[in-house]
């Protein structure tokens, strides 16, 4: 096991080359709805159990199914209302299970990125060949059902191997959502040397982390989102920042939580100088305009050149 990911070098959040977003925006703001399928009876991964209860795990399975049956439409209508195109972190088996959801998101020109095939299939224990096959199949499924191969990857259930990012870069991807080390995009080192970047997603503002792990009250979650935005907006006057709200249709869309989310969305989109965008567009803009300059600055600050 490695002691460090090895994908990036230290790069202080200080005196970096200025990031300029389109139209002089301060913050690139994106919402990443995770649209997931959890299996009722997945094969049991040796490293991690999918469910806390024996088969059938009704409590865990049924609330996640709620997300697709009820929650998705609620969140989609809200994002429509505030002019946000979602960047979907997709369990690609959902293309087969629930094609209606895929079609609605496609009509809205939402982005689809890969989140593996099922969120109950973990990367742990896979050989490199197996992981490559799984990632490739997820890419091909998205291309087939949406007409475009995904640019981004978030490993299923945040389960990784030593080669996850290398493999995705080799298979044509340009960005990862798996790293939480920064508020700006950063170049990532992958073994094939592809131009590959981290686009800030967020663990702290991820609704499942907020609600399930950190057990935060809905209105406090809304306030956290606003506070996060205020700071990134202020700092973005100096150099463009990224803010992401990762969501789950079985968390944020529950009737007792969606008001707080709507308040936060209304607040953010009520500001000028916000680039309401997608993960892919952030990655493409950064690679086209800032990637090489960033690499040079990182090298300089680590004693090179």
């Amino acid at each position, binding site marked *: 096991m490695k002691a460090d990911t090895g994908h990036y070098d230290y790069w202080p959040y200080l005196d970096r080359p200025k990031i300029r977003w389109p139209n002089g925006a301060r913050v690139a703001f994106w919402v990443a709805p995770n649209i997931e399928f959890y299996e009722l009876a997945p094969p049991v991964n040796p490293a991690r159990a999918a469910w806390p209860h024996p088969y059938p795990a009704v409590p865990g399975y049924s609330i996640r199914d709620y997300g697709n049956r009820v929650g998705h439409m609620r969140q989609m209508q809200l994002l429509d209302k505030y002019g946000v195109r979602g960047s979907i972190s997709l369990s690609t088996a959902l293309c087969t*299970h*629930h094609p209606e959801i895929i079609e609605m998101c496609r009509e809205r020109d939402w982005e689809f990125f890969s989140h593996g095939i099922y969120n109950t299939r973990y990367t742990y224990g896979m*050989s490199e060949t197996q992981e490559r096959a799984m990632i490739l199949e997820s890419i091909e499924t998205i291309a087939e059902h949406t007409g475009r191969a995904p640019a981004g990857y978030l490993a299923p259930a945040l389960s990784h191997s030593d080669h996850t990012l290398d493999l995705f870069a080799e298979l044509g991807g340009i960005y990862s959502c798996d790293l939480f080390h920064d508020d700006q995009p950063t170049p990532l080192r992958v073994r094939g040397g592809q131009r590959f970047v981290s686009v800030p997603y967020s663990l702290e503002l991820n609704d499942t982390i907020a609600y399930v792990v950190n057990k935060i009250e809905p209105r406090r979650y809304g306030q956290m989102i606003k506070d996060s935005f205020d700071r990134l907006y202020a700092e973005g006057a100096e150099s463009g920042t990224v803010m992401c709200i990762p969501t789950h249709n079985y968390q944020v869309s529950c009737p007792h939580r969606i008001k707080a989310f709507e308040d936060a969305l209304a607040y953010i989109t009520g500001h000028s100088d916000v680039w309401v965008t997608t993960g892919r567009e952030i990655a493409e803009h950064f690679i086209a305009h800032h990637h090489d300059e960033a690499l040079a600055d990182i090298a300089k600050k680590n004693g090179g050149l």
Partner: protein
Amino acid sequence: MALAQAHLDYPHRRYGMDHDRYGWSMLTDRPPVRWPGAKPLAVWINVSLQHFPMNPSASLKLAGSMTMPYQDLRHFTLRDYGNRAGIYRMLRALDLHGLKASFAVNAELAQRYPSLLATLVARGDELLGHSWSMDTPHAGGLDPEAEAALVQRSLACLRERSGQLIRGWLSPGKLQSPHTPELLKAAGIDYFCDWVNDELPYRFHTANGDLWNLPLATEIEDRFVVMDNLHAEASWAEQVIDAFEMLLAEARQEQGGRLLSLSLHPWVMGQPHRIKHLETVLAHIAASSEVWQAAPGQIIDAFASQQAQAST
């Protein structure tokens, strides 16, 4: 290092669900629902009346069960508090606001405290089966014959002592074994409340014929919010009111008919420092003229009759 090939096979990847218990359907694709009196929002309040034995034997411990070495007097008596004091405080609050609740009752509790059961029966409120006790989870691995006997014993006890038909069922901890739906259907249950994947009733398939699933939301229940998430009581009340207003706004739209299900536990919300927050919620519900406040059996009947019309 590699996983067995089964980890990369996807035998249930197909249209709809990965099992045959119910069909795939998005809430917004359903026929319109109209509740009695042209009220847009149905509100169902369920109170779970539970017995947690001090000497639990089930390998799976449900939330609220004993956690200390025997004798766990603190938890045994704190749960018992709900059935002695908390429930009566809660009944007064309901009556004060003119609201009705259904009661899911562990059969052992009905047997232990006949006067409590008599109070509920005299109120005329609907009772639901809730298995024998909080030490009898219907979890996977339970022997099917033992589970059949458990269902029979629980329902027979509650039916005999209450004189009610008992059409509804709430499994302790909302856990089911692979056999629970068949056993409940065979025992004359019309609906259960265990699968929280929807906000309206839907048909659930069993080898003995269909029954209804009427979801009783977990994410907003008192125990989950206050005891698991450790949110302040005032936050719980705010969350319920936010949910109420959100569902009501949606219910006023063309498709209509939404349902707020509210799950309560007297050992949680019946405490003196919490009851006023329940009263805040009840007052908010009672103040609305757009609510059909109903028992779960009434909701099933109203919904089922419309579904029958919609399909003819």
